[in-house]
């Protein structure tokens, strides 16, 4: 269990490093696929099996394909793709991001999350995840979270209609 966690954590972080170092946009997209699969594995190890499958279906199967199609439709001269702005502002952004990361890591290490009462209660009562979360997720979505679930349907419909409408008038007139 612990071995697999560190294996997949290392995989995810290596893919993140690859993502940062990739110059071409298509390499960026494929290392993003590696990061997504690593996160799905971490979801399984955290006991969210349904969410892991949804992650692979929605992100690796849907969002990434959309992004790759978007890359193919917007290819320009090779020198423009995925280039960084300037080395000067790159260094400033890197320093800012590193400061944010070290602040976050310091906060997570110094904060004793295991001493929170509700986490301690869960550990004492052993009421932790032992079986699949799929039945309870389905029941929750149909009872307690029914309103957001239905609103999600409307949101997806609006997103589909919006995306189609935005791409419809490309030959008639310039909408921008």
């Amino acid at each position, binding site marked *: 269990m612990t071995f697999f966690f560190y294996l997949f954590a290392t995989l995810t972080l290596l893919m993140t490093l690859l993502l940062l170092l990739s110059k071409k946009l298509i390499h960026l997209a494929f290392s993003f696929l590696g990061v997504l699969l690593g996160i799905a594995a971490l979801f399984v190890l*955290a006991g*969210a099996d349904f969410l892991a499958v949804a992650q692979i279906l929605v992100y690796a199967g849907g*969002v990434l394909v959309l992004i790759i199609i978007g890359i193919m439709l917007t290819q*320009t001269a090779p020198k423009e793709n995925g280039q960084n702005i300037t080395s000067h502002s790159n260094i400033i952004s890197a320093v800012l991001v590193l400061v944010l990361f070290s602040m976050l890591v310091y906060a997570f290490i110094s904060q004793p999350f295991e001493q929170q009462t509700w986490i301690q209660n869960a550990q004492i009562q052993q*009421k932790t995840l032992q079986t699949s979360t799929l039945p309870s997720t389905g029941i929750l979505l149909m009872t307690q979270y029914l309103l957001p679930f239905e609103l999600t349907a409307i949101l997806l419909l609006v997103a589909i209609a919006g995306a189609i409408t935005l791409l419809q008038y490309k030959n008639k007139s310039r909408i921008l």
Partner: protein
Amino acid sequence: MLTINLSHYLIIAAALFCTGIFLCLTKRNTIAILIGIELMLNAANLNLVAFSQYDPTKLQGTTSALFVMVVAAAETAVALAIIINTYQYYQTIDPQKINSLKN
């Protein structure tokens, strides 16, 4: 099931979040910025799931992460439609060059 320290999940999520911010700040390409935003949303999902494993009856974190995922998928579809439209008008997706509103 609970042998892994909770802060390890949080540190991995922080690394992913900072990578997303770095991509958004430095890349000169709208699709790379979109990938950065997706990475930040994924990091938030990882945090929610990591806390949700101590909450097996209510599963608040897992359910919230599910809704975040749906919204992220809808956002990507609309964002790519906008990007392709922008490309047809400006012949570039460099956010530095899309500046018709300037001056």
